[in-house]
């Protein structure tokens, strides 16, 4: 495709051609995602009109038809999809059925918050997982290795919502301290913002770190058995140079893939933790919208999540090129 588009002409590097090609292949995936997203929320029993009517005391069959027509829900589902996707393509995600504000406005308000939390969680996850994974591999089958592995298994087994609840409840009982729950925008007061966001981000990060840590450990053990590591040792290099200069980059190639695959978990986890820690992010928005069957909001959030997951995996593909010289675009 890139060839047909002429990206191999001088002036375009193969890297640029790869990026364009890769972005183009995302389009069908995105279209398919939108279909699933659009249909899935409508499959949940109980529709939005029932909910709206149940909030009013007087309701007649006529009201139902009026509301349906007003919200555009009287048309067949495929017609609804086409008018929705048509609008999406020109950047209009529709309006909330309840609040009558544009979905894009709601997303603009909540997406940066969730993005911040996801980023913090990722930083926490990697800065826990990679050093402990390396450490654990270098001390294979010693006490500290067992402790590190048990810890990671524990983090994998404990649901973060439960851990979140514990963090909310116990410190307040024991030390009369509770994590702060009042959200401050980052640009207003970064410190205050971080104080609020850090606790859920750490919990989310720890739960993600478990798998990454095990992967890092396993891969490090694998790489340390490779012939080129023996070559490095035969040169007289110190063990930490062997590990960090010779082994680590080879270890990170599969680890980066894993981190990419964990992106949906990252977003899924933040939905719950935002709720517990009263973070007004996209997760809170989604949860409320699902309860209210606010179709445009739900589809809007899902679409953003879908794009984010695809984009993260696109970044993962690009990272390979930096880590592994054998990968050529």
């Amino acid at each position: 495709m890139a060839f047909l588009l002429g990206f191999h002409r001088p002036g375009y590097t193969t890297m640029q051609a790869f990026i364009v090609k890769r972005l183009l292949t995302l389009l069908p995936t995105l279209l398919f995602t939108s279909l699933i997203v659009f249909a899935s929320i409508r499959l949940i029993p109980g529709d939005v009109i029932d909910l709206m009517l149940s909030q009013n005391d007087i309701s007649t069959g006529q009201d139902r038809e009026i509301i349906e027509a007003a919200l555009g829900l009287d048309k067949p589902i495929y017609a609804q999809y086409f008018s929705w996707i048509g609008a999406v393509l020109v950047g209009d995600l529709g309006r909330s059925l309840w609040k009558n504000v544009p979905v894009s406005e709601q997303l603009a308000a909540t997406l940066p918050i969730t993005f911040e939390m996801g980023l913090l969680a990722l930083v926490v996850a990697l800065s826990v997982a990679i050093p402990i994974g390396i450490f654990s591999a270098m001390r294979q089958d010693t006490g500290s290795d067992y402790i590190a592995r048990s810890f990671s298994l524990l983090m994998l087994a404990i649901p973060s919502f439960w851990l979140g609840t514990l963090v909310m409840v116990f410190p307040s009982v024991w030390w009369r301290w509770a994590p702060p729950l009042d959200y401050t925008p980052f640009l207003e007061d970064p410190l205050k913002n971080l104080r609020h966001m850090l606790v859920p981000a750490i919990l989310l990060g720890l739960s993600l770190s478990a798998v990454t840590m095990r992967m890092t450990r396993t891969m490090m053990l694998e790489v340390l058995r490779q012939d080129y590591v023996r070559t490095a040792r035969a040169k007289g290099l110190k063990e930490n140079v062997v590990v960090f200069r010779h082994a680590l980059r080879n270890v990170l190639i599969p680890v980066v893939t894993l981190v990419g695959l964990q992106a949906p978990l990252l977003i899924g986890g933040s939905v719950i933790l935002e709720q517990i820690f009263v973070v007004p992010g996209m997760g809170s928005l989604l949860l409320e919208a699902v309860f209210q069957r606010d179709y445009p909001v739900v589809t809007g959030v899902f679409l953003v999540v879908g794009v984010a997951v695809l984009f993260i995996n696109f970044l993962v593909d690009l990272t390979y090129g930096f880590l592994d010289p054998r990968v050529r675009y």
Partner: protein
Amino acid sequence: MKASPETPMAREGSLLAVRELSVSFRSERGQVRALDHVSFEVEEGETLAIVGESGSGKSVTALSILRLLDDAGQIDNGSIEFEGRDLLHLDEPSLRHIRGDRIAMIFQEPMSSLNPVLTIGKQVAEPIRLHRKLPWSIALEQAAELLDRVSIPESRHRLKDYPHQFSGGMRQRVMIAMALACRPKLIIADEPTTALDVTVQAQILALLKRLTKELNSALILISHDLGVVARYADRVAVMYGGRIVEIAAAAALYKNPQHPYTEGLLASQPSLHSTPGERLQAISGQPPDMANLPPGCAFAPRCHYARAECRASRPPLEPVAPGHERACFGFE
């Protein structure tokens, strides 16, 4: 097994003296002895070939010298004296000063022995930077010269290339350049050509031989092929079942083998004088199971000359002629 004064084992001033080296490995079947009281010397500038089949202990010998055995391997006994110091009793930092600087290694698989994510230049320059404490720029300059010496064309441009951009033979040249980087006194080449095409094998060995001669480095050349090393070795040690069964000057060993195993190996090689269609002689039987060695000579079950004595006790390595030792009770 004790060295008597007139054996070459007692020679003074050898570059490397391995004495009574025993190594075992942990396995599911318990502790398996891989090397059993192996002794040999390497003189300065000399090429010693160690020949044997898989599992005979030749690679274990090579790795033991620099203490690069993996975690399952354990040195049980013996000493490895290099330039007057026992490598087995050195602490890690002192040993690291010897690795890559005084003693360098070349491994069997050029495909997997180079790090796929580091440039060739960096990998060749690394020991220079490490042991000579030179900045990268100068170390890379020297790396380019080394690549020239191993006949890699356009060496300066290729410094930035990665291993996958080189062929197998070229990679082994890179490995040789890396081993020569600090002008080591001893180079251990563990089956350096086994993974290569036959035509490339001879080139690589000739190159290795020429460069070690230029640097006056000693070379331990490990091979499973007695024929391959014939032209390059000054002396040859033949290993079987974790022991040296015969060691002698190359010419003497090829002309006048003193151990039935060596004799068998030589008889199994095609020569220019053999008639076409003639079958080569094979050594009957299977290589020994290292976890379950016979009580006597390890080769006895396959030996035509074996007597009751051979099955009962192990023959020690003893001189049969000046500079020629064998571990055999005698056969004729």
